């Protein structure tokens, strides 16, 4: 059996960063990914099957067949169906097909409980680390992965010690219009920081402003994920072996709590295993929790790290209030990626609600998504008028939305389904509960701010979607292996080592105590960078 210094389960944002750090330090790494290592052409520009609109399937995994989950009402859901809480399954994970927003959380995001108090029934808590601790790692990720942005515009954060490595992308029509709206209101306005090359960077070219950014792979690799940065470097170093198309079945652990290695099954049904000095779990908040729960031992019959019944709880993602506006002029000028102007005016300090969130204009909207979700409700859905609306108004629609900082509930959780198994025969994730209802109040408040902004930008007609109470997760999934000092109330310590296990770590969004009012990927990268460097230091 092969022996490695480290085995990493999952080649997304967290695992990809860990692979890069460990390989650079000379460690022999085995990086395992259940999805494929795809070329651009293998991530189709299918408008009905992509990470933005998974109507009939996904372009970036997981496969519709053989990967079910179950819900509280007893139903079995497939990866493209509502309630599944899917994230991409491929080398690079979500970073291969994301919208590439590169947000730092705010200092207050790490202190939600002490800032707002803990509403009854919620598991709102402070992080054991703060912005100051993460700041150098945010900066590291911004430079090594590659972010374009304008640090001087990030007035909601302490001053940056180092600017972004690339300037912001030039604004398009939507950005200019919505910037005017923010100016009219006197609200903070900033160009969204993005993992997108605005100029040649790290040997890859600048963005060509195409119309298939979010939900799709970049045709020129100007969108920076782990697949073309840290993982690519790890593979070049010769120290990292990548196995794609393998599903890890369990982590092997001895009676003393020391992890020995992992067992997997590949897509052809062949079993394999390897041993290592350490194991890093980076499978995303649903699958990381599932793997720990599926790795029970006689010492921990409820699953690894689950002695306090914390693994899988506090599942959270983001509610997205969304407001659509019809403008007298064209908003869509075909200059991708589309979204680009944001405000952090309402992330904190709002009257009567807990937290808040960032708001931004959105990416270029695919025509079929526009038809399905953006058409005003008083326009006929068929016949001449429906066609005429798309013809005349598709390019005159704008939308504003943003991630709301969720108030977690211990009942929003991942457990194992006692009966249903995936195509490998592994018990699947069962999802139950909801986010705490306070989240709905904050989301409604943010919806109203989005409406205000949309009107100030000049929309003639405004409508949208107010979020309802539900379980959250999806592409921003987090919280299921919460970080904390106290093993009774958390799964990993502040260095992301699983309590009670010297050589088992979780490096992904699972460790987030709360998930910020921002896209969480830069925070996943920053925490993973910090934890991986610590692992190497203490080797």
């Amino acid at each position, binding site marked *: 059996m092969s022996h490695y210094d480290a085995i990493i389960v999952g080649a997304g944002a967290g695992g990809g960063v860990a692979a890069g750090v460990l390989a650079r330090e000379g460690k022999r790494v085995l990086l395992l990914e259940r999805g494929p290592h795809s070329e651009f052409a293998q991530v*189709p*520009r*299918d*408008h*009905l099957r992509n990470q933005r609109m998974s*109507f*009939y*399937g996904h372009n970036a995994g997981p496969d519709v067949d053989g990967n079910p989950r179950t819900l509280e009402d007893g139903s079995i859901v497939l990866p493209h169906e509502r309630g599944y809480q899917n994230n991409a399954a491929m080398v690079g994970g979500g970073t291969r097909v994301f919208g590439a927003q590169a947000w730092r959380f705010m200092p207050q995001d790490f202190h939600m409980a002490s800032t707002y108090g803990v509403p009854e029934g919620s598991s709102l808590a402070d992080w054991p680390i703060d912005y100051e601790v993460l700041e150098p790692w945010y900066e590291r990720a911004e430079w090594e992965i590659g972010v374009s942005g304008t640090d001087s515009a990030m007035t909601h954060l302490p001053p940056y010690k180092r600017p972004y490595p690339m300037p912001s992308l030039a604004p398009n029509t939507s950005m200019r219009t919505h910037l005017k709206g923010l100016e009219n209101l006197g609200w903070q306005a900033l160009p969204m920081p993005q993992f997108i090359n605005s100029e040649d960077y790290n040997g890859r070219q600048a963005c*060509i*402003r*195409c*119309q*298939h950014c979010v939900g799709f792979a970049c*045709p*020129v690799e100007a969108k920076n994920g782990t697949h073309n940065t840290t993982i690519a470097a790890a593979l070049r170093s010769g120290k990292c072996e990548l196995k794609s198309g393998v599903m890890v079945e369990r982590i092997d652990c001895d009676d003393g709590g020391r992890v020995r290695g992992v067992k997997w099954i590949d897509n052809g049904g062949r079993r394999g295993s390897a041993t290592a000095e350490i194991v890093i779990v980076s499978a995303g908040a649903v699958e990381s929790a599932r793997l720990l729960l599926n790795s029970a031992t006689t010492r921990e019959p409820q699953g690894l790290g689950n002695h306090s019944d914390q693994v899988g709880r506090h599942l959270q993602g983001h509610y997205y209030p969304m407001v659509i506006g019809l403008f007298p002029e*064209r908003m*869509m000028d*075909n200059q991708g990626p589309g979204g680009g102007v944001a405000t952090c005016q309402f992330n904190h300090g709002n009257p009567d609600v807990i937290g808040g969130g960032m708001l931004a204009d959105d990416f270029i909207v*695919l*025509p*079929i998504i*526009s*038809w*399905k979700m953006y058409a005003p409700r008083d326009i006929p*859905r*068929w*016949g*001449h008028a*429906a*066609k005429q609306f*798309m*013809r005349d108004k*598709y*390019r005159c629609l704008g939308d504003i939305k943003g991630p709301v900082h969720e108030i977690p509930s211990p009942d929003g959780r991942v457990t194992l389904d006692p009966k249903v198994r995936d195509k490998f025969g592994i018990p699947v994730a069962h999802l139950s509960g909801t986010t705490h209802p306070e989240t709905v109040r904050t989301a409604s408040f943010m919806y109203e701010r989005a409406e205000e902004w949309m009107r100030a930008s000049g929309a003639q007609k405004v409508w949208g979607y107010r979020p309802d109470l539900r379980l959250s997760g999806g592409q921003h999934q987090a919280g299921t292996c919460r970080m904390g000092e106290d093993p009774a109330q958390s799964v990993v310590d502040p260095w992301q080592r699983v309590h009670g296990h010297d050589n088992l770590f979780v490096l992904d969004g699972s460790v987030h105590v709360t998930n910020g009012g921002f896209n969480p990927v830069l925070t996943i990268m920053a925490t993973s960078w910090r934890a991986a460097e610590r692992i190497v230091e203490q080797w």
Partner: protein
Amino acid sequence: MFSDQQLRTLHAAIDRVIPPDDFPGGVEAGVADYLLRQLGRDLAHLAQDYPRFTDALEAEAQAAHGQAFVALGDAQQYALLALVERGEVQAVWPLDPATFFAQFIEHCAEGYYSDPGNGGNRDGVAWRMIGYEVNG
């Protein structure tokens, strides 16, 4: 899956949902091709219901006008489909008219506005109509 007559009814209905004007209607743009492909794939669970739907449209035309659906003028076809949309039908329907029609509209739009790789939106004609460009 469809008889010739059923297919003619389907085509007529598609062209009322997305009618031709100075840009192609649904059928010319490949919506029927999209739908037939999907009925063998993601919409296989509706492969039996679609012929029933066209038969029901036909029965509805006979009940209301004593004529085949395809023999009606465009305006009569619109009016008849508008009643179907509201569930106000005269014939006996083997499926819920309003629910099925709402689904049918979605499928027509998917064929018309999604990428040509899915079998409809021939040569990207719907994207040209609305001004969605693809570069790169």
